[in-house]
C-alpha cells in the first residue's frame, strides 16, 4: 500500500486533555501530523478535529479505530483528498514600501487571487485561501521580495459524503 494524504475528521466532546490523548495516538505509532485544526462542528457542543496525515490506508484506518475508541470521541472518519472539499488559509505580512516599489507584487496579488486584509504605514497583510500548493506557489513568488511574517492554518475540510453524527449521538443516548 502506498502513502497518500488522508484527512481525518474527529467529532468529540470539547474537553481539556482530549487533544493530548488524540495526538498521543499518532505519537505512539510514529506518524507525523501534517496539519491539525480544532473548531466547533455543525452540532452544538461537539468539537471537530481535522487532522492531515501522509500514510497508507491501513494506517489511516487503524488510527481512526484507535481514535474512535477514546471515551470522549463520538465518531472519526478518514477520507482521501478526492473525497473531500478542503482548504487552508495563509497570512503574509509584507513591508508596505514593496507595494509601491515592486510592480511585480501587484501582479502576484492579482494572480494568486489573494486579498489585502490591511494596509498600515510599515506593512500590509495579504490573505490567501486555497489548496496547499497554491499557497506554496504564492509564498515562493513573494519570497524573493521578503516576507516579514508568514503563517498557514491547518487544513479544514468537509466530506462529500454525509457524516451522520446526529444519528450516532441519538443512538448513543438511547442505549
Amino acid at each position: 500500500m502506498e502513502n497518500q494524504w488522508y484527512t481525518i475528521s474527529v467529532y468529540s466532546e470539547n474537553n481539556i486533555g482530549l487533544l493530548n490523548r488524540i495526538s498521543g495516538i499518532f505519537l505512539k505509532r510514529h506518524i507525523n501530523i501534517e496539519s491539525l485544526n480544532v473548531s466547533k462542528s455543525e452540532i452544538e457542543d461537539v468539537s471537530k478535529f481535522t487532522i492531515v496525515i501522509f500514510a497508507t490506508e491501513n494506517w489511516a484506518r487503524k488510527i481512526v479505530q484507535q481514535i474512535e475508541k477514546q471515551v470522549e470521541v463520538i465518531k472519526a472518519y478518514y477520507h482521501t483528498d478526492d473525497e473531500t472539499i478542503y482548504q487552508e488559509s495563509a497570512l503574509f505580512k509584507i513591508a508596505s514600501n514593496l507595494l509601491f516599489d515592486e510592480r511585480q507584487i501587484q501582479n502576484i496579488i492579482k494572480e494568486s487571487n489573494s486579498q489585502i486584509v490591511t494596509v498600515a504605514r510599515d506593512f500590509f497583510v495579504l490573505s490567501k485561501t486555497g489548496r496547499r500548493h497554491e499557497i506554496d506557489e504564492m509564498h515562493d513568488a513573494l519570497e524573493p521580495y521578503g516576507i516579514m511574517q508568514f503563517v498557514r492554518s491547518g487544513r479544514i475540510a468537509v466530506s462529500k459524503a454525509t457524516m451522520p453524527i446526529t444519528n450516532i449521538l441519538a443512538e448513543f443516548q438511547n442505549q
Partner: protein
Amino acid sequence: METLRAQKKESKKKTPIRISGAEAIIHCLLAEGVDLIYGYPGGAIMPVYDELYKFQDKLTHILTRHEQGATHAAQGYARVSGKVGVAMATSGPGATNLVTGIADAQIDSTPMVCITGQVPRHLLGSDAFQETDIVGISTPVTKWNYQITKASEIPEIMAKAFYIARSGRPGPVLIDITKNAQFDELDFAYEKCTGVRSYKPVPEPDLKAIEAAASLINNAKKPYIVFGQGVILGEAEAELKALVEKAGIPAAWTILGLSAMDTDHPLNVGMVGMHGNYGPNVLTNECDVLVAIGMRFDDRVTGSLDTYAKQAKVIHLEIDPAEINKNVKADVAILGDAKQTLDLLLPLVKKNDHSEWKNEFDKKYQIEYDTVIKNDITPTKEGLTMGEVIEQINIASEHKAVIVTDVGQHQMIACRYAKFKQSKSNITSGGLGTMGFALPAAIGAKMGAMDREVVAIAGDGGYQMTIQELGVIFQHNVPVKIVVLNNDHLGMVRQWQELFFESRYASTVMTNPDFVKIAEGYHIKSRRVVERSDLKDAVTEMIASKDPYFLEVKVEKEDNVFPMIPSGASVSDIRLK
C-alpha cells in the same frame, strides 16, 4: 484477616448533604461498592486520608510499601473478583509510581480506578512542591483520566470513572484531585453513571455476521478455537464450553485466557504463543476455520503475521472494534460482548464431532510430552526443575488454587503446567510483562477471594522488585503462599542470551540474599528446598498452612523453557529444543 475487611453498609444519599470534597470521595467509593483500597499517603492527598481514618469501619485502606504495589494489588483484586480495583496515591512521586501498574492494567484490560492528590488549583503549573502532570503522563496508558479542580465535580466524575473502568472492554481510569477540591465543600448527592454520550461500551452484535460464522463453523473440517481474556471478562465461560462441546472443536488459550476453561477438559488442547504448546501453535497453520474469541492476536501469540493462519478463514469475536483487523484480518468479525455473541451463535451451530482432527493435537502432544514435558515435570536429572514444583503445587492444591505469576521463565512454566478447574484463577502480567507483579497482585487476589488458596510464583529477579510488600503480608497476616523459583539468574533473559547472543550473560547473573532470612525478618513462616526429596513435603506443608508461607526452591541455574517460537518466526517453526 477475616476481620480485616470492614463491614460494608448501604450508603443511601438522596437529598444533598453539605460535606467536604475529601469526604465526598469516600461516599463515592462506598456508593460504588468499594470496601477495600490500596494506597500510600502524602501531602496532596492528606484530606482524603483524614476521611479514610474516620470511615475505617466501612472502608479498609491497605498501606502497600510502594505505590506500584498498590496498583498491582488493586489489579490482583480486580482480576479474581471481577470488581473494580482502587489505588490511591499522593501527587508527584506517589502518582508517577503508579504508572507501571496503570500501563499493565491498560494492556491487560483490568478495571481499576486510581485516585491521585494534586497541588491546589492556584499552584497548578507553578512547579510547586510535588507537582507533576500526572494527567499528561498517564494519558497514553489510561482508558480515561480527568483532573478535578472543583469539589462540586466530584460525584459526577467519580461515577463516570467507575462506569468507564468496568464497562465494555475494562481498563484503568485515573482521577487527579487538586487539594483545594478536597478541602472545599459541596452539596453532595450521588447518582451512578449509566452512560456517557460519546461512548458505546458494547457494540450491537450483527446477526448476519453471526450467521456467516455459524455457516463457516458448520462446514469446517478442521475448526479451531483460540480464546482469550475476553471470555473471562465477559463471564462467558459456560457459553464457550457449550460451543466447544456442541461443535466438537479443539480449543486453545492465550496466556490471559487460561482458566476460562477447565485445563483437563478433553477438548482443551493447551496454550498458544511463544512458549505455548506444540500442537496448538503448529496446527494454527493447518486449521481451516480459526475462531478467535476475546483475544487480540498479540505478537507473542502469532509470531510472524506473514505466516500466521493464512490458510484459515478467521472468525473474530471481540468487544473492541479497534481490535478488528488490527493484526489479523477477520473474514467474519462479530462485535459484541462474548457472552451475548456466543449465546446467539450457539443455536446456529450444528452438533459435530471432529475427533480425527482432535487426534492431530493428541499426536503433537505426545511428541511434546516425550521431548519436553516429561523432563520438565518428572525430571531424572539431579537439579530441580520449575516444572516439577508447579506439578507439586497442582497436586497439593487439587487444581483449586489461584496462581499469580511474575514475569520470566517461571511464568511460562507455571502457565504451561498449572491446572485449573475454576475461572479467574490465573493472574499474570501478560501484555506488559511487568516484573514485580506477582507479590502485590497475590495480596490483592487473596483479599478479593478470601475463601481461595492463592499462590504467588516469582523468579528471584522479579521478586526483588516488589519484595517490600512482604510488609503488607506480615502486618495484616494475609495468608498468601509465596514460591520463589530461584535460579540465581534473570532466567528468561539469560535464555535469550544463550540462544541468540552466544551465551554472553550480560548482567543476568545475580548474587542473591538469603531469601528465607528476609521472609523471617517479616515473621513469615518460611522454608528452603534444595533437594528433590524435600519438595513434596515442603509444598504440602505450604498449602496446608493457615498463615502466610514463603518457600524458596533452588532450581537448576541454566534450564531453558521450550517449546519456543523465536521472535519473528512462524508458529510452524516452533522449536522443541
